[in-house]
């Protein structure tokens, strides 16, 4: 299995083999994150630009560290302090970065499809770090890496995703990825936050959290995105927490070795009680470590040299 794509825009386009290649490559990368000297010279002289049109701490830091651990130069651009406020278009900004020598552009944008437009504009590799409510592939990859690391295999597992399915790009990427790897995916949440036709993606829809949890191997709680909740799709955070918040009692309905994932940042007392967020089944901190490893693997795979030249087998 070889990697030939220029960009990582989403998991919808990837095959099961490609997803597994990324996850396999992330295993040795995780060792680098955990050792004393967290640096390999692999991407020496390469430049990774983080272009973030939405606020982010963990994803941006994760990409920055992944680039640095791999030996690349990393540059962060957040739109508040850049030419974007002067009205420069996405394409123009990207072109500038390219002619300054960026090899990889990591983009987060509030518009679905922004990464795709960028990928068609520049010859640098583009990684989608979240585009609107479309996809957030690296988050789903790190979720799958965490599940695989703990459970050994994803095929045959029942994964229940709880919360705002409508606005979540994390869900869409996870549904594509998990179903490709053979998991059964359930989604559960308030009816107003579950989009019509989601079952066409091969998932089971539940409206009762208790029913959905029974038999689950993995529970993934989604963040209630306060910034996307101005339309009044549910009455109050308190009511949401009462009906869909994961508590110790509710988690006990799932399988005893059920894993609890959350993409962060956690609204404690809303999606998760503090007790389960810090409990033994919680993978939240592990997910963050694994995120760096998965992003290192992607940077490595995407920067694969001069396409089309023969492979030198010399020792």
């Amino acid at each position, binding site marked *: 299995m*070889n*990697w*030939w794509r220029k960009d990582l825009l989403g998991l919808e386009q990837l095959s099961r083999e490609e997803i597994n*290649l990324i996850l*396999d*490559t992330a*295993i*040795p*990368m995780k*060792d*680098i994150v955990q*050792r*004393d*000297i967290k*640096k*390999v*010279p*692999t991407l020496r002289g390469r430049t990774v630009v983080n272009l973030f049109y939405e606020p982010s701490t963990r994803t941006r830091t994760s990409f920055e560290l992944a680039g640095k651990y*791999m030996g690349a130069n990393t540059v962060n651009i957040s739109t508040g302090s850049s030419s974007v406020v002067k009205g420069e278009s996405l394409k123009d900004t990207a072109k500038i970065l390219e002619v300054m020598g960026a090899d990889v552009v990591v983009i987060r944008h509030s518009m679905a499809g922004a990464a795709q437009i960028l990928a068609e504009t520049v010859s640098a590799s583009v990684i989608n770090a979240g585009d609107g409510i479309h996809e957030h592939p690296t988050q789903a990859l790190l979720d799958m890496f965490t599940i695989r690391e703990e459970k050994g295999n994803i095929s045959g597992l029942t994964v229940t995703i709880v919360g705002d399915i409508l606005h979540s790009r994390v869900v869409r990427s996870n549904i594509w990825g998990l179903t490709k790897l053979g998991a059964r995916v359930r989604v559960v949440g308030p009816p107003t936050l579950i989009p019509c036709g989601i079952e066409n993606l091969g998932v089971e829809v539940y409206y009762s959290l208790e029913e959905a949890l029974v038999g689950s191997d993995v529970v993934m709680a989604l963040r209630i995105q306060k910034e996307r909740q101005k339309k009044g799709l549910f009455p109050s955070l308190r009511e949401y927490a009462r009906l869909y918040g994961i508590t110790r009692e509710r988690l006990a309905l799932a399988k005893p070795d059920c894993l609890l994932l959350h993409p962060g940042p956690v609204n404690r007392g809303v999606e998760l009680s503090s007790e389960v967020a810090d409990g033994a089944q919680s993978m939240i901190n592990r997910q963050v470590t694994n995120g760096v490893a998965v992003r290192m*693997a992607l940077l*490595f*795979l995407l*920067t*694969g*040299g*001069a*396409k*089309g*030249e*023969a*492979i*030198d087998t*010399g*020792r």
Partner: protein
Amino acid sequence: MQLKEKVQLMDADKIRRTLTRIAHEIIEKNKGVENLALIGIRRRGVPLAQRIAAKIAEIEGKSVDIGILDITLYRDDLSTLAQQPVVHKTEIPFSVKGKKLVLVDDVLFTGRTVRAALDAIIDLGRPACIQLAVLVDRGHRELPIRADFVGKNVPTSRKEIISVKLAEIDGEDRVIIEEFTD
């Protein structure tokens, strides 16, 4: 283009005797096995390191640590390859700090793999010293690197390919020279 076998350099017995000699040489040079560890370079350095370690245990009655090194992330030709090679785990379950390390590989050719291995080890800590053991030294060095323990010196032409086959990976033990035929 097809690979054709030209000549056999070593059979299973010869490989076994050669590794026994290398094991003796390693013990002699290091005056025992105190603080010694073997590091096999993926892939075929790994079974070779395991075999040498077994011989050392037989001779000295003491076991030595074994590690596995994957040098993919340290290669100097990544930007010229069409596709990224597959990365595997480096598994060194002990601290290299202050250890006498013996790197083990099957063939020493340009020296670039060894250069990468040296960098990879130094990133894990500061060993007391690093020595190099290879089953075959075929010449054509591109870097100032030499082996401390050599199974067999084989003058080759650059067009030839030295193929080391080991039972653990290839199902048989032999070393052959191959050449491309048009």
